[in-house]
């Protein structure tokens, strides 16, 4: 289920603007990796390149390679649709499909792809995914209501259920808790801890406490100034990054001296 990610010398461009330069890191399977850094340093950009969502933006492209268990995601002839079926993503703002019910939202990966599935298999998948996202008990009696009728935290967990329903190998989360209250945030952090057993998880966060709570390894990104590309400064065990980092700017950032 879970796969290893290897990023080799990745440069990311928006048109002629180089947003990220020279990122290389390895992410172990069944682990949580946090990307931290100031706004605009390219951590979300790097995250989006991992499931080729980056190129959805007009003019954006990538130089370098990302290996998923040794297979290059950016090799010639690779269909981005296939990549995205293996690497799921949860976005910053909860975005359930407004035309669909809770049940249909969970099944979106199946329904939208026109895949056939028996009613009982669908019911199983809905229950399994919602239980996986810690949402089952709250919504099991109202699976037929629109997904947009839930609270923000519930919507975000619905989006996580939707992402894990297609059983990806890797789960990417782009600031999944930034729009949520502390209780919902806690629910999602607990969920990340559980999901770690099965998935490789990469999470972008602005909240350093969150990074230190949930992640095994942490990557710190920084930017020299506006208009300059973001760079990976340090990548290490989370405990080391937060207690004894080897680079001065990392220490400044995690101790709150800037950014």
């Amino acid at each position, binding site marked *: 289920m879970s796969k290893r990610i290897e990023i080799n010398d990745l440069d990311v461009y928006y048109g002629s603007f180089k947003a990220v330069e020279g990122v290389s890191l390895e992410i172990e399977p069944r682990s949580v990796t946090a990307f931290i850094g100031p706004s605009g340093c390219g951590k979300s950009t790097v995250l989006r390149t991992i499931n080729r*969502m980056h190129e959805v933006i007009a003019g954006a492209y990538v130089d370098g390679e990302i290996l998923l268990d040794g297979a290059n995601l950016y090799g010639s002839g690779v269909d981005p649709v296939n990549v995205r079926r293996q690497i799921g*993503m949860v*976005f910053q703002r909860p975005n359930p499909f*407004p*035309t669909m019910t809770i049940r249909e939202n969970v099944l*979106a990966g199946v329904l939208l*792809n026109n895949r056939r599935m028996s009613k009982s298999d669908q019911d199983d998948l809905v229950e399994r995914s919602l239980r996986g996202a810690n949402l089952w008990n709250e919504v099991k009696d109202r699976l037929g*209501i629109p997904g947009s009728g839930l609270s923000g935290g519930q919507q975000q967990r619905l989006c996580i259920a939707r992402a894990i329903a297609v059983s990806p190998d890797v789960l990417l989360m782009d600031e999944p808790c930034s729009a949520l209250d502390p209780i919902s945030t806690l629910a999602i952090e607990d969920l990340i801890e559980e999901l770690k057993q099965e998935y490789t998880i990469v999470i972008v966060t602005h909240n350093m406490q969150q990074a230190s709570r949930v992640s095994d390894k942490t990557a710190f990104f920084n930017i020299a100034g506006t208009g300059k590309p973001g760079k990976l400064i340090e990548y290490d065990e989370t405990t080391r990054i937060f207690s004894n980092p080897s680079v001065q700017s990392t220490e400044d950032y995690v101790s709150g001296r800037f950014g």
Partner: protein
Amino acid sequence: MTTTISAPRQAQNPLTAGQLPRWSPWATLLGALLVGAAVAGLVAGASGTQFSIVATAVIGFVLYLVAITVVSQLIEGGRKATDRFVTGLVTGAFLLALIPLVSLVITVVANGMARFDVELFTYSMRNVVGEGGGVLHAIIGTLLVTLWAAIISVPVGIFTAIYLVEYAKGRLAKAITFFVDVMTGIPSIVAGLFAYALFALFFGEGVRSGIGGAVALSLLMIPTVVRSTEEMLKLVPNDLREASLALGVPKWLTIAKVVLPTALAGIVTGVTLAVARVIGETAPLLIIAGFTTNMNYNVFEGRMMTLPVFAYNQYVSPGVQEQAYFDRAWAAALILILIVMILNIVARLIAHFFAPKAGR
């Protein structure tokens, strides 16, 4: 234990000081209109002309604006005075805009009711020279021609809009948008001449058919459909597209199953308004669909009568019993307005039932 400390209630709330009472604008308006009527009456009496309601309204309105502004300025101050002046101006403009609309509806209903009977909806004009006869052939013609125009232009328009919003980039997209905008301004007679010229190439001079009319109308309809659909597709949040793509759904399925359903209500409304815009077109149909007194269910063969052409034809070439022809023209106009109204109601119902559920 909580104790509420309340100041003794004052007989006069100090916050209402320096305010005009609520009835004052109405009283002012009534007074202004009375003065206007008096002036109009005096002028009418002095010059021996008829009493003029228009003069009463105009004088009354101007007097009202002056009076309310001055009174308000004296009692309430500058901010409120400006507010009352502009409120009066805006309401006046609204009423002025309403006059032609209401007048048109009343005229059409009043004149149209004379022949709004069962025979009108069950007979064609075949072998009718005087009274009687009906517009069934024109209703059928209008519905068929418009239906075919919609069949042609809705797919073309929606696909063009999808291309522009989801796929196009750079110069081509800009060029298409520009020419679509230019097309919205095409005079309808040009569309009719184009359709005639096109069909004359294949079927020879003097060709007349319903489908030709449909082609002419679709030329007028496509730009409207493209623009409204484009706007609706742009309103679909990018979040939804990304959510779908991130689930490994190919782009075309994302568009077909996420983007279009989300925008459906708006697209349907846009299409209906486009239909309403072309259903009353006369000039192109006069050229290419022609006119006839017979029923014709086949758009591909022969002349086809439509409601606007019928109304025009009855009006310009009345027979001996003039009034019968005029009554039929008004009745046809009334039916046309009713069809457009029904279309709008249907569009609203569809928009209501297909709109994304707001939840809870």
